[in-house]
Each structure stands twice: as structure tokens, then as C-alpha cells.
């Protein structure tokens, strides 16, 4: 790989809470290339979400550098960040975070609209994604009427809608039963691989680690172990 999709150097986040300062992320170096599926594992409170948030440009580092597709983003002004997120990053959340007032399809169209596509084009793209996540018949259903696994597949479609190079997922299967969790993960890793996307998945779920190309273990804000999986 000539260029890393994600390149993190000496990344640190300190939360000042009253007297004590919490080093949530403490001098992390990490490179992830396109097409790679990395699982970020570690105990609760070890800094996984904080690290993911900084990579996803929704949290500013205290110090250190984050490069997205070779572009330094840690020093960018707040108002430039939405564009970076829109162009490069797709998020998947543990709680799905679908807009309940929009249909499943509209949730995905919305990203297209943000990217500046006309409604019809946004719809066409969303429909294609619904085929890929095998939910074509649920396009006009509201999130409330979908199962957890279906919601997370809609969320995957939404994360892919902007055609990002990077997908960041924070415990995407935690709220799912093991069967749908596994199905969701297989879908996510497959879609990531086909387009050469870099995928970072925070998880506790030992049942899905076999789907990873790489496992990064983090503890107390530091990387403990980083190993490639044989595949």
C-alpha cells in the first residue's frame, strides 16, 4: 500500500475533569490501509470510542496527528470537518442512530442529499445499497418497524451512501443477537473488502473476531498488541 487510508501518530486525548486529567488516548500510532478490516478491542474505558471519534473527526485530539488519505486533519478548523466526514467517513453506531421520522430508504437518501445529489439520484443510489444489504423490500418501512439486525443493515447502507474510504463502527453488534450480529458483520466486512475500504470496528464480541484481518488491542489508552490474522 502506497498510501494509508488512516494514519495516526502519537495521538493523545486528555479529558480534564476537575482535579484529575484522564488520558483517554495516550500516544497511539496506527496505520490502516484500504481494504483492511481492523478490530479494535479492549476493556471498557480503555479509550476505544475516543480513538474512533478522533479518527472520525468528531473529536479534536489534545495532541498528535491524524491523516485521512494522506491529508492532515487534526489541525483543521471545525468548519472544514463536516466536509471531510462527508467525503471520507461512514459511521455505524451501536444504537443504530437512524432518524425515526424518516423511512429506512430516506435515512440513506439523506446522505446523498447532503452530498448534493438530486432527490431522484439520491434515491437511485439508496435503492442500489438496499439491494446490497438485502433489504430491498424494507425501503419504505420506518425504523421502528424493523428488527435490530435490519436497522443495523440500514445503518450500514447509510454509512456506505457517501461512498467513503473509511468505515468506523463502534460496537455495531452489541445490541444484536449473535445470529444477526454475525450476519451484519459478514455483510460489513464483505462490502468493505469489495471496494477497498478501510474498516475499523470497535468490539467486545469474540464471536466475530475471525472476520478481522487485524486485531488491535488497546488498554489504558495505549496499544497493547497489534497482530494480523491469518485469513
Amino acid at each position: 500500500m502506497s498510501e494509508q487510508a488512516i494514519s495516526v501518530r502519537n495521538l493523545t486525548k486528555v479529558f480534564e475533569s476537575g482535579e484529575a486529567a484522564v488520558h483517554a488516548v495516550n500516544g497511539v500510532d496506527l496505520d490502516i490501509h484500504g481494504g483492511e478490516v481492523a478490530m479494535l478491542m479492549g476493556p471498557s474505558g480503555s479509550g476505544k470510542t475516543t480513538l474512533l471519534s478522533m479518527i472520525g473527526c468528531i473529536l479534536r485530539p489534545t495532541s498528535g496527528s491524524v491523516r485521512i488519505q494522506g491529508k492532515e486533519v487534526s489541525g483543521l478548523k471545525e468548519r472544514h470537518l463536516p466536509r471531510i466526514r462527508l467525503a471520507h467517513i461512514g459511521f455505524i453506531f451501536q444504537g443504530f442512530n437512524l432518524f425515526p421520522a424518516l423511512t429506512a430508504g430516506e435515512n440513506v437518501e439523506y446522505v446523498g442529499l447532503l452530498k448534493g445529489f438530486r432527490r431522484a439520484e439520491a434515491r437511485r443510489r439508496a435503492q442500489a445499497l438496499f439491494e446490497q444489504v438485502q433489504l430491498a423490500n424494507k425501503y419504505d418501512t420506518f425504523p421502528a418497524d424493523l428488527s435490530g439486525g435490519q436497522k443495523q443493515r440500514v445503518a450500514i447502507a447509510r454509512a456506505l451512501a457517501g461512498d467513503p474510504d473509511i468505515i468506523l463502527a463502534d460496537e455495531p453488534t452489541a445490541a444484536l443477537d449473535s445470529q444477526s450480529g454475525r450476519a451484519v458483520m459478514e455483510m460489513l466486512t464483505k462490502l468493505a473488502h469489495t471496494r477497498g475500504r478501510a474498516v475499523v470496528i470497535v468490539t467486545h464480541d469474540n464471536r466475530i473476531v475471525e472476520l478481522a484481518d487485524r486485531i488491535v488491542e488497546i488498554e489504558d489508552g495505549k496499544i497493547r498488541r497489534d497482530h494480523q490474522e491469518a485469513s
Partner: protein
Amino acid sequence: MSLLARRNLLHDKVRFAVTLTGVVFAILLMVVQFGLFVGFLETTSNNVSHSKADLWVVSKGVRYFDIGGWAPFSERKLYQILGTPGVDSAAKYIIQYIIWKKEDGGTENIQIVGFDPQSGLGGPWNVIKGNPEDLKADNAVFVDDLYRQRLGITHIGQVGEINGYRARVVGFTEGIRSFTTSPFVFASFKSAQNYVRLPENQTVYVLVSARKGVDLQQVKRDILARVSDVDVYTTAEFRWMTQRYWIFTTGAGVATLIAALLGLVVGVVVVAQTIYATTIDHIREFGTLKAIGASNLHIYRVIIEQAIISAVIGYIIGISISVAIVYLSRRNEAAILLPWPVALALFALTVVMCVSASVVSIHKATRIDPVLVFKT
């Protein structure tokens, strides 16, 4: 218009109904409290406002409309006033408390208004029956529809008694309330002079109509220069003096003023709180929007649109109910008035409140803590 703004509101209909109820309640509160105050102001000074006069010449020291009857002055001053440059016409005027005796013998306190039917200055307005010209006849009076029952009057031609003289009702007005609770009864200056036993050569006020385009302050000074022992006020000045007197010397006035201000404050708080709560309800969605790449500008637009939709719909409902309340109150003792500038100001206030309340919550939304979107 943003898809999300509209859908968010319609999606949770109960939430939307609660929001609208808050806005509507606030508007009603403000209309009623403010309307009562506006009604109070209008009622205390209606005869001044509707006098068609430009200037009021009063005995030195008279500080509000209703009191003038106790300090009449010589009508010689009328001629001095008529000779003042800038004065087009001038007319004598009486206001005095007196007793009205009903046909059945019962009595009521009234305020008699004596005006010059020739000039029309200070005459009745809102006439719904009869012709003000008929007041030229001796002992002819107009009464207001609101007080017919109190004065024991059912129809035109009926006769009451004022201070031992007959008073024949020749017309009705509508909505001329009296703040002092003594109804106004309109008569010609001559009849009124008779009723109140005002000496032949005396008047209570002189109402002045100035020439078009003259400087009223200059005319005021000219009158003061040639007429002794009087004060001269423009109609606006005299109206405000009268309003101020009744606001600040009566508990009712201060109470109404405070209630109006409280209505405003409570209304603002209710709307702000309602919109704020609605926005905070959706805060996680705004965090998600931000995470999926929406600019702050886009988030602002969604939130402000939601606020404006709520404001406009709430206002339409609120003002419609208000208009009904105002209409129903038109025959009450206490008037609730909703002049269109107040209605317009209220619309602006509602929109500004909704938008600023939502902007405060936007501040929260655009500084989203990632924890907000990542937690379950």
C-alpha cells in the same frame, strides 16, 4: 425546506401537539394580558383619543381628563383662543360627574360629556343608532349600548332624568367604555351646561382644531402667551397624561401593567422552554447528522425550520383563538383590545423567541460530544 425538519415535527404528533399547545398558550396569555392593558389605556382616555381636537386648553393644574369639571374657566378665553394664529376652530367642552335617574326611580353615577355639535369636536363616535345632529336639540342624549341596562334604557326616545332635567335618548354608541365605571352620556354643550348647572359664561375645556400644517407646539406657546391661567396640551400629551394618571394612581392600573409584563415574560419563557425541550429531544439526531457529514449550517437550518414551523402554526392557532376572545369580550366591562400592530409585534416576537430558543439548543447540538452519538 428540509425533509428532516418537517418529518421530525409530524413524526411525533403528540410532541408536536405539546409544542403547539405551549406556543398557543403563550400567545393567548400575552394577548389577554397585553390586550387588557391596551384596553385599559384606551378606556381611560377614549374621549381624548376620539375628540378630533388637536389641542386641549384646560384650567391651570388640571392633569387628567376626568377631573376637569371641578375647575371650569371663563368662556371669554374661548374668544382669545379663536384669535390666536394657527387656530382653525375651537369649541367648548364639558366633562362632569353627575347622577342619572332611571324611569323606575333608581339612580346611577354617570359622566356627562357636553360638546359643541356645530364643530363636532369631542362628540360621540361608534354611533350605531341615531344621528349626532339630533344632539343639537335640548336635553337630547346619546348613551352607549354597553350601559343601556344600567341606565334603564331599552329604546330610542326613552327618557331619563339628569339633575332634575329630562334626558331623551336619541342615539346609541357602541363600545365607549368608561374606566371610572360611570357611563359616559353625550349631550350638547348647552344641555350639559344646564344639567351640571355650569354658569352661563363658563366652560370646562376648550378643544382646538389647528390649521393644517401648523406647528402644534408653536400654537400651544401662542395660546399660553395670550390666555392666562390655563395649560395647553396636544391631544397625544393629554391622552398620555390621563393614561399615566390612571395607571399609576389606581391599583388596577399598576396591576394590569404588571400582569401585562408578566404575561410577556411568562409567554416568552413558555415558548422558549417548549422549543428548547423539543430541540433537546432531538439532540441525538443532530449529533448523528453531524457525524454523517452535515455542516453546522445544515443543522442550524433544520432546527430553525422546525422552530419557525412551530412558531407560525402556533401563531395562526393562537391568534385565531385570540380574535375570538377579543370578539367575545367586546361587551365586557374590561375590554381586551388587539390592535393590528400588537398582533404583528406578537408574530415577530413569537418567531424571534422560537428561533432564539432553538439557537440556544443548537449551540449544544453543534458542539456535540461524541459520547452522545456513540452511547446506546
